[in-house]
Every structure is written in C-alpha cells, then in structure tokens.
C-alpha cells in the first residue's frame, strides 16, 4: 500500500454556516466529502480505523478563514485534475478550494510547520482611538491574562498589531499577527479583550498561515 500512497495538500476557505463547525467535526466533514467523491482516502490501521487527514491549525468556532490547509493521504495516486472533477461537487456550502498541491510523504506533519497566523478582527461597534490603543498594548512589557484558569503572558505571542485605515464594509478593523506554534498559540479574541473590546461584538477572519522558515 505504501508504494502508491499519495499525499495532497488542500488550501481552502471556510465561511458561511460551516464556520460553526469545530475542528473534529470539520475533519469528519472532510472525510465524508472524500467519501462522497469516491476518492480512495487512506486509513490509519488499528482497532478503530481513522481516515488519514491533517488540518494545519484549528480555527476557533465562529471564525471564518481564507487560508486553511489540509493534508490528505490517498491509497492510490490521485491527480489534481481528478480532484477538481470529483471533489468540488461533493463539497458542502462554505468550504471552497483555493488550490491543490502534491506533497512528498516524507515532509513533516503540517501542524509542526506552522509558525504564526494573521487575522482581521472587524468591530460591530465604532470605537475611538483604536490605533492608539493598539500601540499602547504593543508597548506593554507583558499582558497577563487567564485562559482556562491558567495565567499566561499574551504579549510575546503578538507579533504585529495595527488598526487598518480602510476596513471592509465601513467597519473598523484591526490586523493582528499571532504566534501559532505548538504550546504557544495566540488567540485573536484575547487580543480584542485586552484592547477592551468584547469578543462578542467582533468578527474574526483568518487571512494567512505563516510557515516556519518563511516557506
């Protein structure tokens, strides 16, 4: 089997109602999409065979994204054109393919290659002095916050932060670039909170995943 094993990387967007589908459920949604497309996904051996799928970085519930990445393994070679013909019609609303790429089997796991992620946070309400507040936050030596009952410092996780001059739909928007390494992942809603903005009154959109070594 391993001789014909093929690994494909899929770059995709996640919008519409599927943004309320969590990480594990999204994985299952992908598996079912491949099954509907009758593409030969590979399975991990074991008591409870699991489809071989890897998502780059979990997207929190409710966020939209234009830059999600999935690695999938097929038991037999599958060409990009086959994928285009069969996979696209089987996709649910809200998942859209940006591009496909063949990846060597030896390449390290997707999750280990991601360094950071960039987001747009759009405000529902008009806020004064947004840029000034962003600068002030960046000047803090540390931003101690609590997540799931544990204290942590948000500041080193923020790589970039600024208000955008022309934001879509006339709403205020900030750009934030956050570390996304295993064990050191910044959350955009935490940045909003630290800026004194209620996360319930924002919409978060992931715009880019940055690979290690600037791939």
């Amino acid at each position, binding site marked *: 089997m391993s001789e014909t094993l093929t690994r494909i990387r899929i770059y995709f967007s996640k919008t*519409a*109602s*599927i943004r*309320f*589908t*969590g990480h*594990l*459920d*999204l994985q*299952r*949604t992908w*598996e*079912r*999409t*491949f*099954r*509907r497309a*009758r593409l030969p996904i590979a*399975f991990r051996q074991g*008591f*409870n*065979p699991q*489809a071989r799928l890897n998502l780059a970085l979990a997207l929190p*519930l*409710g966020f939209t994204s234009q830059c999600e990445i999935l690695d999938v393994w097929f038991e037999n070679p599958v060409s990009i054109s086959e994928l285009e013909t069969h996979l696209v019609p*089987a996709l*649910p*609303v*809200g998942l859209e393919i940006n591009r496909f790429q063949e990846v060597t089997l030896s390449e390290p796991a997707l999750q280990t290659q991601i360094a950071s992620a960039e987001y747009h946070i759009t405000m*529902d309400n008009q806020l004064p002095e947004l840029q000034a507040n962003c600068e002030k936050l960046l000047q803090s030596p540390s931003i101690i916050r609590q997540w799931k009952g544990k204290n942590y410092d948000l500041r080193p996780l923020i790589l970039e932060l600024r208000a955008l001059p022309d934001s879509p739909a006339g709403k205020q928007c900030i750009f934030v670039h956050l570390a996304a390494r295993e064990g050191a992942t910044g959350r955009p809603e935490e940045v909003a909170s630290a800026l004194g903005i209620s*996360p*319930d009154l924002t919409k978060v959109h992931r715009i880019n995943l940055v690979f290690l070594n600037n791939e």
Partner: protein
Amino acid sequence: MIKNPAEIQETLECILPQVQKPGRYTGGEFNQVVKDWGKTELKVALVFPDLYELGMSNLGLAILYDILNQRPDVLAERAFAPWSDMESRMRSSGTPLYSLETMHPLSSFDVIGFSLPYETLYTNTINLLDLSGIPVFSSERTSEHPLIVAGGHATYNPEPMAPFVDAFVIGEGEEIILEIIDAVKDWKGQGKSRRELLISLSSLWGIYVPALYKPNYGDDGVFIGIQVLEKKAPRQVVKRITAKLPPPTTRFIVPYIDTVHSRVPVEIMRGCTRGCRFCQAGMITRPVRERPVEEIIEAISQALDNTGFEEVGLLSLSSSDYTDILQLVQEVSKRFASRHLSISLPSLRIESFSVDLMDALKDARRSGFTLAPEAATERMREIINKPVTDQQLLDTCREIFSRGWHNIKLYFMIGHPAETMEDVKAIARLCKDVLQIGKQIIGGRAQVTAGVSTFVAKPHTPFQWVVCDTVDQIYAKQRYLKAALRGKGLKLNWNSPEDTMLEAWLSRGDRRMADVIYEAWRMGAKFDAWKEHFNYQIWIQAFEKTGLDPTFYTHRERPIDESFPWDHISTTVRKKFLTEDYLWSLQGKTRVDCRERCFACGILPTFADLRRENPGDTWQCPEVKSRKISTQDLELLNLESLPVLVKSSL
C-alpha cells in the same frame, strides 16, 4: 416580534457566538433542500421537538422531508428545539422559532408537522408552539395560523395532546402526508373556515381530529367512552399502513456536527411477528413487511454516494427474523468491503445464529454485543412471551465471548406483571453467570453491562391493564440490584423511578392529562427526557393544581372490561385478542412466532384487500385468496367496531 428571515439571520449573527454548539442552529448542511419560497405553493415545517442531534438521527423525519421535497408544489424545512441557552437568547431578542433552511418563522408555514416518537416530547411541543408565536391551544388558532399535525408512535394515544394538536396522523406517514397536503391546498383556495378543513381531514384514513370528539367520564372519574361530535368523523380511527414499503430514502442531510446517529439508516423490515406482550412497537407496526435484499443493497450504495457516511444501520424490530438476513449480511459485507464502513445490526435474537451474523459483518467493532432477554427467569420470559431458555442464553453468551467480544450488554426490565423479588434477584445472578463464562473464556477482560429499565404498561399492548410499580417498589428493586451488581467486570445502568412515573402518566393519560401537561409547561417543564431539565416536583404540583391524582393513572387496578381513552384509535389488533393474550400471560401460556401460525390478531380481516393486492412474501401474514370472508373471520371481526371506510371495502 421579528418577522422576516433577514432580521432573524442578523440576530443570529449576534447570538450564535454566545451559545453552546451553534452548529445546531445554522442549517446549510449538505443535501438540505432549499426551494424558492415565493414560488412554492405549500410550505411545511417538520419539527422534531428535541435537540438537533436527536432530531437529525430520526429516520421518520428524513423520510417525510424527502417525500415532501420531491413534490414541486411543496417545500419542507426543518426545525428543532433550541437548548435553554439558545431559547433564552431567542426570547430576549424577540426571535421566533425559525426553519433551518431559509430562516423563516414557523408561523409563516402552512403546515407544521411534529414528530412524537416518545411522550417526554410533549412539553417541548407546547414550548415550541409558544416560541413560534402560535397559540398553543388548537381552539384558539384561526385561518391565519399553520395547521398543526403530529404523528409518531406516542400518538397512538393522542388524548394527552388532544387540545394542542389539530390533526394526528395515526400510523405510517409516507402516503398520508401527501393527502394532507392536497387537503390543505384545496382548502386554501376556497376560503373556507378552519373547522371545515379539520372535518375534511377527518375523513382521511389514518387521521384523528380530536376537536371532533368528546371523552366522557363516569362518577368515579374513569373514562367511559368517546362521543363523536361530527357525523362525518369516523367512530374509530384506523391506523394508516403502507401496504408495500416504498424503496428506502437515500438522500439524507449530512450534519456538520456530531449527532446521536450519523449513519445511513435503512429499514429492512417493518413490524414484528414475535408478539412480546410488553412491546408497543411490536403490536402497532403489524403486519410484517420486508424489503427485498437487492433493494436494500441498492439503497445503501446510493445513500453512501449521496452522503459519505461511514456507518450503515440495518434497522428493524427484530433483525434475525428478516427472511434473508444471512444473505443480506453477506451481500453487504462483500459489496462494501473496500469502503471502511461500520455496519450496525441491532435487535438480534438470543441464539448462536446472531453471533454468526455479527461475525459475517467482518469489520464490525468488537466492542459490545447486545442481547435483550428482558427478564431473567424462564417463568417471567414466558409471561412476557419472550420464551428463551436459560441454557440458550448462556450458550449464546459463551459463543459471543469465544468469538472475540469482551463486553456483553444485557437488557432487562423490572416491574413486569406478577414479578417477585426472586425474578429481580435472578437478574443479578444471571449477569454474574454470564460474567463467569466470559472469565473462563477470555479472562479478566470480560465485562457484563446490565441495562435495567422499568416496565410501563403501554396502550394497545396485551399488558395495557397492568398496574405500574410504585416509586418505593422500584427503589427497593434497584437497591437490591445496585448492591448485587458490584465488582470488577459488572456494570449496571438504570432509569430513575421518577422518569418512569412521568412516562407512565403521559403514555396512559386521558384528555384531562392535557391540563397537567399545560400546567407543568407553564411552571417551566421542558426537555423532560433530559436529567438537566426534568423536574419531578413540577409535575406533582401540576397534578395538584389540576386536581388529578397521579396514582389513578399508574397504580389503579383496572377491570378487564375497562374502556381505555385510546380505544377509538384502532391499531387493528383487536382488543379481544389483547385481552385473551393478557389472560394467557397470567397462565404462563406463550404464543409462537406468528409466521408459524396465525393467531388472527385482527390485521388480516381488516386489511384483507390490501393483502390480496400484495400477494406472496411482501407480507409475512398468511395469504388471503378468496374475496369471500370465512365464517371464522366474521366471528373474529367485531363489525361494530369497524369504521365505515373499512366496512365498505369488505
């Protein structure tokens, strides 16, 4: 109140990020059907009054959704009960219950169909009507409001929900749902009153319009009979059946979020020939009709391509009794071997053949094997007409362990008629014997899980006369089992006695029970099947408020000739047959599988024409050849109790 889909959508943007599992409330799943609202003549909302995760696992709902949406002049959309966090945000933002497909408020549909497979959905049904801004009482609704229809197994006793529902579907929905649609379409064009619609519906085979009937009670409070208030309404409402099962539905909506069952469900057979006396499903779903093997295989294949599900459920009340079960199982595992599927085959009989069947489904996970002896002594299994010997049971368990399963789940009930503490003790003894066998074969990994529920005497069964155990009796029996079934390898699951009481009141209630349900809902009862929400005290208070005695419904001795509040609903299994079967049970007399010998339960005389039109193996009842009815049949027929509809066809 918010009225249009755009406003609802906008509100959802704000409230969805604040609730648990927002994926329940968004719709947009693969295979959902969205039609042009403005151009579709008749709009139906199908509601399962519990959480999305349960409703999306219900086969009946999926079938009706498919059938309705195949009609170009009809659209069907879905709605489920929002959990309390969502409901409170909906109410505070003035958002009514809306359909998942197009976010239309439920009040803008022509027909709302509630699925009521079990009784603990009653308060939710009222709550959802209220959340939709629709008057909860049928009598307060006008031509402006949708027609409220309800169907499902619980509605075989429709009386507790009578004031809230305009029309009940008694029996199988596949055909009648379209007849209801036609009746509503006709009525819409004519500008007639709502009552005229109800009267026209009442003449359809399988429809019960409760407003056209009035129950009467004696001085002692016991129900004495139902009065028909409208001469066009039938004296008895005969259940609807689909004489020949249509090919299975293959287009299922694929949920984004995890649901109770995410699988391709295929009903391989409807009905059961075993005649277990406690089992309502077995009595009300007669006659047995099987689907051909090829049709099932073809349906699985199509449904897998349509959905991408990784599991298939071959569903019936008694899988082992499906005539070609071995062929079916072999065919399924051969045909779909390369697809990495898991196949579930529930409801297997206690015999080694069942182990062969599970074995043939090669990739079936060897996690647990479920058997339902229902009682632990041979004596009790004869009373309930599930005659299996202890030896047969133990041999089957030995076979299961030796073929690689580690965990055997055994389902029992306590509270059977004529039960003694000896029968209860036998449950613990039997579980330990089974565990012992497991230890001999596979050692310390062997596990036995006992699921012990409490018997409730359901309407339309041979046990409908039986008195329910009291809360104290149930506690005493459970206390014994909890103490006895301790230790490594043993696990016990049980239902709380209070849950059992509620189930018994609701399933046995007459029309007065509606007041109790309404009061309980007003005091906050909802999601009664969920322990996070179920509040026994509310129900006790609701009884007090209405002046009804809960023990009247559960613990009163009933004479054998008592009239029941559901007697005007005919499953076509005659009351005379049920009475005889109950009396037989008291003598420990059993009946064999009725495929071996017809006991003239009443199905055949009533549906003789349908049987004649569907000859051969389509039904598992004997064939009816002659158009002439034999004198024996005439004797069995209680012509008085037959509705006009069936009489005219004889």
